[in-house]
């Protein structure tokens, strides 16, 4: 594969005139023809359109200060984010035939800044999964080892960047869906604080937790994309009306930085080599790590799934084939509902809708959904207390390196446990990022996860960038 530049490198080269956007598209085309069939990162790819746009960007020229910041930069978009005029499938049968009639806010912002959108990437159906094995368009494979999963649910976005099918991508993260695949494929995946990035146009999975996040090769790239897509949006009432602070990437580790490690997370870690890979850069830089106990983190998978499944059952109630998508018509209306939904959703989605409906039903809602809400508040409080002692919290992103396809998919509970490190900070609405550890295990990438206090996204990106340079 032809290695693609980072956004920062490409932008520089375009301004220099040493490369043209069309050249990059040509490289992408080559990489796609080599790898796409095996990896299956894309659901829909529009290389000819991208090439045309690249040509236009080249013709317009690249002038510092005048040209939009992302001009000539090709980005892939996870197929649960609406791009006007393009299908938005969410890797599900039930949305077959649906063309998004509007742009998500993040898409408008990318377009305004000149980005070239390559196409829509594969994902776990409706973003539910940690391995990208539940897509109706077939699983995505890890470009580093085709027998292994890329992680999920933004597996397609990560794999595309991974094999050089895109310079960067957008994914969505609810309980780890950007960070986990980034960890498995050796890339950077950033999950902003809940409320930083507009969800307008993101097909809702769990409304209290969903966030759109960038996937890229470097923290610098992720930070750039974040700064473009983040900020208040009147279309999304849950966005913070206060815009994020500007990011200053110095690359320097602050002298007095305090980093904590959650003892409960490291206790549960089976593979010590993962632990070593995660801790190595900090030891190298002489950053002292403080041990923190956050006991509620142990129940984070339970709390996460309880909450998420209930919201899923609600958010997916609109998929009935009546106004859009595929409809499996029967003689009567009731029968049509049952058949359309029964056949339109895959197993994992069905499982979650069933459990979620159960969790909200009368007689059970207190024991289930309301319990999850209370748990969430208590967990957030524990994190807040922890941040009184430290600036950042460090854990592995995943308990292991990429597992093999088919290894966990038969046991849903096993799959849920993969979220053990990425669910708790998402529940607490905190910004968190996964960066690749310098050392791999058995040749496979390991993800370092850093978490910051709520709203401190800029500070987190700055620190992550510094750690990346170690």
């Amino acid at each position: 594969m032809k290695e693609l530049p980072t956004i920062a490198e490409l932008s520089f080269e375009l301004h220099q005139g040493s490369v043209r956007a069309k050249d990059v598209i040509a490289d992408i085309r080559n990489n796609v023809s080599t790898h796409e069939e095996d990896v299956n990162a894309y659901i829909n790819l529009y290389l000819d359109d991208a090439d045309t746009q690249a040509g236009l960007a080249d013709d317009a020229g690249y002038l510092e200060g005048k040209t939009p910041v992302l001009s000539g930069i090709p980005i892939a978009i996870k197929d649960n984010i609406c791009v006007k005029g393009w299908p938005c499938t969410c890797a599900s049968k039930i949305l077959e035939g649906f063309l998004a009639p509007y742009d998500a806010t993040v898409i408008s912002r990318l377009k305004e800044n000149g980005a070239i959108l390559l196409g829509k990437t594969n994902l776990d159906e409706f973003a539910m999964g940690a391995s990208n094995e539940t897509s109706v368009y077939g699983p995505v494979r890890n470009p580093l080892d085709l027998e292994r999963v890329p992680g999920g649910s933004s597996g397609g976005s990560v794999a595309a960047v991974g094999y050089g099918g895109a310079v960067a991508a957008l994914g969505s993260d609810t309980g780890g869906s950007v960070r986990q695949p980034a960890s498995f494929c050796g890339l950077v995946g950033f999950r902003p604080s809940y409320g930083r990035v507009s969800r307008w146009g993101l097909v809702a999975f769990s409304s209290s937790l969903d966030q759109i996040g960038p996937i890229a090769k470097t923290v610098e790239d992720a930070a750039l994309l974040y700064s473009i897509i983040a900020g208040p949006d009147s279309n999304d009432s849950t966005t913070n009306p206060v815009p994020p602070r500007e990011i200053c990437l110095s690359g320097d580790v602050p002298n007095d930085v305090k980093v904590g490690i959650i003892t409960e997370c490291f206790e549960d870690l089976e593979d010590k080599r993962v632990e070593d890979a995660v801790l190595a850069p900090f030891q190298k830089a002489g950053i002292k790590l403080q041990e923190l106990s956050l006991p509620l983190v142990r129940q984070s998978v339970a709390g996460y799934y309880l909450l998420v499944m209930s919201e899923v059952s609600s958010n997916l109630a609109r998929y009935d084939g009546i106004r859009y998508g595929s409809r499996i018509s029967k003689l009567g209306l009731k029968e049509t509902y049952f058949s359309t939904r029964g056949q339109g959703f895959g197993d994992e989605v069905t499982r979650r809708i069933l459990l979620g409906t159960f969790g909200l039903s009368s007689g059970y809602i207190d024991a289930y959904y309301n319990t999850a809400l209370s748990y969430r508040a208590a967990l957030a409080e524990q994190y807040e207390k922890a941040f009184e002692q430290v600036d950042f919290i460090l854990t592995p992103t995943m308990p292991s390196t990429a597992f093999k396809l088919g290894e966990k998919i038969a046991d849903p509970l096993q799959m849920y446990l993969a979220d053990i490190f990425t669910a708790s900070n998402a529940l607490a609405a905190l910004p968190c990022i996964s960066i690749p550890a310098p050392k791999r295990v058995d040749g496979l990438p390991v993800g370092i996860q850093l978490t910051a206090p709520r709203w401190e996204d800029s500070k987190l990106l700055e620190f992550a960038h510094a750690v990346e340079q170690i």
Partner: protein
Amino acid sequence: MQSSKYEVIIGIEVHTQLATRSKMFCRCEVNVDASPNTRVCPICLGLPGVLPQTNETAIELGIKAALALGCEINLESRWARKHYFSPDLPKGYQITQFDYPLATGGELELPGLDKKVRIRRLHLEEDAGKLTHTSRETLVDFNRCGVPLAEIVTEPDIRSAEEADVYLKELRQILRALGVSDAEMERGHFRCEPNISVRPRGQSELGVRSEIKNLNSFKAVREGIERAVKDQIKWLEEGKEIVQTTYLWDERKRKLKPMREKETAADYRYFPEPDLPPLILDIEKVEGIKKILPELPASKRRRLLAEGLSRQDAELLSAEPGWESYFLALLQEDISVKEASTWLLNEARGILTERAENLSEFRIPVKEMASLIVLHRRGKLSRPAAKDLLAAMADSGRAAEELMKEMDLAAVSDEGVIEEAAKKVIDENPDICEKYRKGKTNVIGFLLGQTMKELRGKADPNTVREVLTGLL
């Protein structure tokens, strides 16, 4: 129909469409007359990836209505999702308010009944689309989907169909007076769902409820309630077990049709709406709205009563802004409250009622009406003549003086002429006069009538009576 053996307990839920220009959670125009599915957008169609955007005016109208009903405004209220599957509900849930409604604890005074109905709560929500059913298919129009509604729920304080009727009419008046809603029942702006239970008097436990939907007129509400009460009493007498049921009012057959239990037993799975933060209201804003509330019907009635109007007149004027403004305009023309009451609210209104016309079709301009009243006041028109003139003016819309001259209605005030007519009548009715002299004084009425006839109604009856008695 009211059995004294039983007590009827009624609570009413009203859904009223708020008079906003756009929908509750999107900026589509509220216009149910528009061609089907032309006032829709991704939000109200429940497309993937959409999020609600709350209508500021809907909140203000909700606050207005709540204040007028004497409710306590909850400065923090929250949105909730109410789930059920229906083709007219695109998201598969309705955004409403559940645990934390906009307002609670108010009351409404029922005019003429010396009674107050407590308001349990007022909250805001969005409407569903419109379904048209045939046996072969169903059609859905989403224009109405997302229109803002206020739901107003009473405590079960109402005790009869009549009280329910008065409650609904008063509530409607208030909503219209405030500009909160047009509240036209027939257009679906004002949907009433009573729930009724009956218990033996003296029993503290409430009876089993019957709920009625699809009542589209005040008449239907009364009939529906009366029907439900009748049925419940019958069942209690028969010792039958009553099951909580929801009924649909069948307008054509004028009957209650029970809805199938499956349709009514719903688990709505309410939970807090994650796409909307809590609605936090500024106390100053609420106080500001309170300050500019227009005069409410109840206080208007009290004021008019204090000015000497009858209860009936006070109620009419406070109910009908048209009549009120005409009335006030008359007062501006130096007509007294009593005169305006008699000639406008009594006589003129009587004519309109007879002709099945309403005030908008009334042809007499205020100044001419005033003119007629003044002519009568000055004795230039007898009362009967004035009535004739009024009718003629109502027909033609012409000026009082002009028409009076043309119809030759001017009062006869010449005593001589009156005397002459009186004498004639006396001469023609000797036995009646004999009866009068013998003590049967009430026969004067007949003689008066005859004399007035002679005079073609153009004299003041009191004067004529005086002359007659004088002569007899």
